[in-house]
């Protein structure tokens, strides 16, 4: 019997609202993150991965973006209903985030130490000495060789890899239950990528955390994640255990992605678009969003929007799942 999910995103929609415009970008997304697992979220650029992740901590740009439906349950509390003050208590302390571009994600005017200790003090009533000790430990935990030296350095003195480790340390200082990492290694070179992903995986095991990992890279998914969800045009089209999905994808989109990748685990395993174009969120067809690019398309696909349904051991959003 599976345990209750730690984070349960149910039918989440996030949309753009403004003068005379209004459409959803993230539509009816359900994702569950269980204790002590890595959930990978994959999908082509613009499919709504970051927006889904940001909306968990209400970090999406609002206005113009709003959560327009669904709920995000964390340990039974709906995060979408929290007051700003209560949400602030969750950010960093219960759920932390690591962003894609570490160089611009760190405030250039303050040292690593100031950044980390402010984050500690945002949640814990501790002395400056204790905050420093916690910060140094987090730096070491993030795999930084010389924490004392880095503590006094400014972001401009750090390489991309070290900056990203500082971001991870920042995520660790308040010992959260969940880390959401949005393409944490895309900006880095391959060896550093591997080291950082390994570190994340180890931290998950050491601390019993859960990680939601957003990535373009199916090789990364195969080597790091326990479960995965594939997103397309703002929707989850397939989800399940990594082994199941990668071994036998049922959605034509996932299938296409996998056959477009010559060798799994190689550097070339970025998501290569299948022929055709992803529909924009404001010009979605009535039926299946993938219909224009799908080789199995039928009339039913064009008229009737497919729901996410159990198929074999995964969930698939398709009228004619690949066997």
């Amino acid at each position, binding site marked *: 019997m599976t345990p209750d999910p730690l984070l349960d995103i149910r039918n989440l929609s996030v949309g753009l609202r403004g003068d005379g415009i209004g459409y959803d970008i993230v539509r009816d997304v359900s994702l569950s993150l269980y204790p002590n697992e890595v959930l990978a979220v994959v999908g082509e650029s613009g499919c709504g991965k970051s927006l889904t992740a940001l909306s968990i901590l209400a970090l999406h740009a609002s206005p113009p973006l709003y959560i327009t439906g669904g709920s995000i349950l964390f340990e039974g509390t709906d995060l979408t209903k929290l007051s700003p003050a209560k949400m602030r208590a969750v950010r*960093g302390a219960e759920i932390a985030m690591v962003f894609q571009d570490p160089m611009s994600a760190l405030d250039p005017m303050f040292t690593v130490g100031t950044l980390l200790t402010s984050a500690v003090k945002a949640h814990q009533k501790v002395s400056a000495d204790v905050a420093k000790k916690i910060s140094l430990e987090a730096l070491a935990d993030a795999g930084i060789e010389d924490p004392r030296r880095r503590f006094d350095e400014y972001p401009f003195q750090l390489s991309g890899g070290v900056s990203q480790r500082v971001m991870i340390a920042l995520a660790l200082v308040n010992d959260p239950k969940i880390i959401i990492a949005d393409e944490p290694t895309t900006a880095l070179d391959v060896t550093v990528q591997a080291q950082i992903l390994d570190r994340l995986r180890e931290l998950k095991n050491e601390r019993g955390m859960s990680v939601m990992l957003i990535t373009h890279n199916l090789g990364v998914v195969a080597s790091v994640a326990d479960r995965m969800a594939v997103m397309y045009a703002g929707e989850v089209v397939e989800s399940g255990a990594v082994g199941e999905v990668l071994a036998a994808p049922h959605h034509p989109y996932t299938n296409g992605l996998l056959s477009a990748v010559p060798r799994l685990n190689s550097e070339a395993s970025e998501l290569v678009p299948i022929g055709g174009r992803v529909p924009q969120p404001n010009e979605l067809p009535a039926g299946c969003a993938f219909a224009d690019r799908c080789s199995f398309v039928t009339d039913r696909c064009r008229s009737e929007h497919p729901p996410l349904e159990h198929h074999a051991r995964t969930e698939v959003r398709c009228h004619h799942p690949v066997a």
Partner: protein
Amino acid sequence: MKSVLKTTLLTLLLLIASSLAVFAAIRLSGGDVTAARLPASATAEDRELFRQQVGLDQPILRQYVTYVGEVFTGDLGNSLTNNASISSLAVEKIKNSAILGGMSLVLVFGVGIPLGMIAALKRNSWLDTGITSFSVAGMAVPNFWLALILIYIFATVLGWLPSAGQGGIEYLILPAVVLSAEGIALTVRMTRSAMIENLSQDFVRTLRAAGLSERRIYFKHVLRNSLLPIISLAGLRVGQIVGYALVVETIFGWPGVGQQLVNAVLRRDYPVVQFFSLLLVFVVTLGNLAASVGYTLANPRLRK
């Protein structure tokens, strides 16, 4: 730190060059200085003798060196119009101008930065619109015109404030407001746009994700980043205040360096003109030096 030393040396060179230029300009600007001191009946010989007495027959560079030497010993020479010693005159004038200029500088940053921050925080609200319109007006209205309007409203019509002269704080208000108006307006606009720009930087999202309060993010991180461009242009603000002081002190009869300088120019009292214009050059240069050192110290990349 090396860059601070370099800036200081450059500033010193600039100071020598610009003071020399001012020194020479006063001598080359034409007009007979002897006319101010000697009676109309004085002969050409009398006039030549006078020139020799005050050293005007020497080469300019020589005169400059002599003059700088004298300034360092505290001997600033005498006024040609009433023979009063310039050093005794200077202390009072400098004090008055320092009060007015200092007050204006405090207003430029002390009012400009908070207003800009409020406008950025409440952007697109009526408060922002109000502050922004005021700052547009502050830049568009020439300061002598602003002076006349304010004198008319607050002195003539309402009678709340004196229109000119010196005394208690009430005499300082109008001239300081006029002198700082444009600087405040520019600082409001710079602060507002820098704050808005920095608020959308990636690092703000990182700080939010870490659970820092909005207040801390805004007042510590975004503000610190936004102060850099303001500090880097602070030298210009000082220059503006010094330049406008000539007009504003004259209009408000504020007995400072600016008013003194305008009067001396009108009377061709060249030793007075010389000292006070060099003083202004000195202040402006020093203001730029302070701004540049401040920028270096405030910027981690340059400080290290």
